[in-house]
């Protein structure tokens, strides 16, 4: 076999290999992604009923309730337009709190409660997940009045050189 033919075969095999690998990776991706929906979207029924997805927003004040077993908590998540009740069994992250932004991942039950198997709050108290921020802004743009005290702490500071 000539060197040129060898190289052609090598390139051919490589192209086929990459193609197969890419197809496998993409199809695996489809079963492993979780879409994000805001509480308003959940109310409008845009969410999947049989797949894992994420819902995010602010934890509504005074809705955090601990259940009898001491490990399950219930709280409402809002985008300031609609709310979704969330149930989670386990230990909440340190920065979880009422009035804070959260993203929960899980499935929605037939009772309309979102059963989360993961709840994310952030490392840094002045950080807001981009999805949550977008959600709040969308709700705001649609004429919902924002509740007080949710502006980013970094904004509006007097700075001098």
């Amino acid at each position, binding site marked *: 076999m000539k060197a040129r033919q060898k190289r052609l075969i090598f390139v051919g095999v490589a192209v086929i290999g990459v193609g197969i690998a890419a197809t496998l990776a993409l199809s695996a991706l489809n079963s492993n992604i979780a*879409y*994000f929906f805001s509480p308003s979207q959940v109310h409008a029924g845009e969410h999947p009923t049989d797949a894992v997805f994420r819902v995010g927003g602010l934890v509504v004040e005074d809705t955090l309730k601990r259940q009898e077993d*001491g490990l399950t908590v219930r709280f409402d998540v809002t985008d300031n337009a609609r709310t979704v009740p969330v149930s989670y069994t386990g*230990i909440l992250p*340190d920065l979880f709190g009422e009035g804070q932004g959260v993203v929960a991942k899980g499935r929605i039950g037939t009772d309309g409660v979102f059963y989360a198997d993961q709840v994310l709050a952030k490392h840094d108290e002045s950080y807001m997940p981009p999805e949550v921020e977008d959600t709040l802004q969308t709700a705001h743009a649609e004429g919902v009045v924002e509740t007080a005290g949710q502006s980013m702490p970094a904004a509006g500071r007097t700075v001098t050189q």
Partner: protein
Amino acid sequence: MIPELGHFALILALLLAVVQAAFPLAGSLSGNRPWMTMARPLAYGQLTLLAVAFAALTQAFLTSDFSVLYVAEHSNSLLPTIYKVSAVWGGHEGSLLLWVLMMAAWGAAVAAFSKNLPLTVVSRVISVQGMIAIGFLLFMLLTSNPFERIFPVPADGRDLNPLLQDPGLAIHPPMLYMGYVGFSVAFAFAVAALIGGRLDAAWARWSRPWTTVAWVFLTIGIMLGSWWAYYELGWGGWWFWDPVENASLMPWLVGTALIHSLAVTEKRAAFKSWTVLLAICAFSLSLLGTFLVRSGVLTSVHAFATDPSRGLFILIFLCIVVGGSLALYAWRAPEVSDGGRFSLLSRESALLGNNLIFVAFTVLVLFGTLAPLIYEAFNWGKISVGFPWFNKMFLALSPFLAVLIGIGPATRWKHDEPVRMLKTLWWALALSATVLVISALPVFSTNTLWVPVGLALAAWLFFAHVAIVYERLRNKGGLSRMGPAILADLRGGGRSFYGMVTAHVGVAMFIVGVTVLSNYQLEEDVRMAPGDSYELAGYRFEFLGAQQVPGPNYMAQRGAFNVYRGERRVTQLFPEKRAYMGGGMPMTEAAIDPGLFRDIYVSLGEAVGNGGDWALRLYYKPFVRWIWLGAILMALGGALAVSDPRYRLAGARARKSAADTAAVTA
């Protein structure tokens, strides 16, 4: 006054960087020797100025000068002194300053340890580094000046994020940055070679030790980050496939491919264009990582509170660096002929396989990390990619890599015979097959095939390297004098060989750790009252209740546990839940009883009810230390390889020793 001095030093450093970028390069192109000799002093000057700036910021932290905005945001008068120092790089502006300082240090190191390099090469490398420094210094001065003042001066600072008040995290960023920035040296060497149009074995030998040192730092940095996340975040995981973790992993993956490909370029003068491309990619991915972390485009547990203008600046800078270097590559690389043919069974092929797998890993991580952005850009919805996907992808490719790591070092350059290799490796093969069969026995109740496969691959890696060392020593004159032979080898040109063996054994250890941990770890969320006991993995956890305990700058709820195995008390654990005074931020401080074969890990959730009950998380983590020990071995291997005398000896002796090694390995 001192902060202004720091600010002024930064501006001077920028001006010096402009000179550094222009004159040595121009001198090297026009043959103007005085301009070229400016390169080294400029590199030292750059380091001095940035050290002054860094010292000024450190001083502001030590004296708690809250009139500096950055200090006010990241420190507090109650903060312990060591964390006042580490708080210097605890936020965006300061970590950038650390970044440019380290880059200047790398530049000065190149200037100091390049006595045997041609002046044209040194001046070009230093010039390229000056160009990168311009980018970062502009970025700092325009968007993230750490010396900005605040008025009115706050009474006290907002405190350092409590998660960062930890010795592990005090050294994690410097290590990681040393790695990131270190790839800028490899990048500068590659670009310098492209400018000169001379890509040869000598170029590879020059840039190889630098690349390996950067890789060692990056390895340690990532390992520290993983270890920190494990004990500090209280989730008990060691890797989360978080975008920011991925951002540090991508340069590491390409860097690993690069140090292997450099070996081929140095020894066989092959893969030259490919190696240059990898060097460009490694640094570009470091920049991309910076962009992802700083711009906040991705949801990440690490993300800093962000500012879009910063993201935009880095994006533009990234485009200039990547676009410019790739254009140069496209223009110059075809002139560099690829020498050296090799047959299918040869070390070149094995290393090519290694490179392909590592590049595939990188593409997967890159794609998985950017997928949310891609989906958003096409309006397909907001997604997050679950970590099962990453695990699946890595599991699919890793076995091939592990097999290859065992074969590669046993093969000869250019061409090898299957029969000869089988003679060396047959018993390693037999032993790993035995491990496969034994670990699949029902006694070990493994539910998946991955446990036997993982352990067998690790055994293969380990025994194959024992076989390779044995073969080398036999060729060096007999096994009767094994000890002295190894010592002599370590004094001579054998260090890079033993470095490779150490690093590869580290990979074996890593595989064992990951395999055992992910299949046998146990985790339980429980509610316990004082006096309650809970049994997990043969250990009995007795909860004695929690008490209020004050710390230097926090108030803690400290739980107390006795852990028994049978009747014997194994350990006492004191996990804490802290509330920091500065920001009032709560923090979980897990308690861990570490061990070579298992960790016992308890973290406090929150108090439940009024009877002193707590929601807790208990973990049993077998072999988790092997993951980090493996990474440490990899880094040690790299360090050993760099210490090989052949990188340091000048002229003829260097060439002779390289020829010797080539003769031995060939």
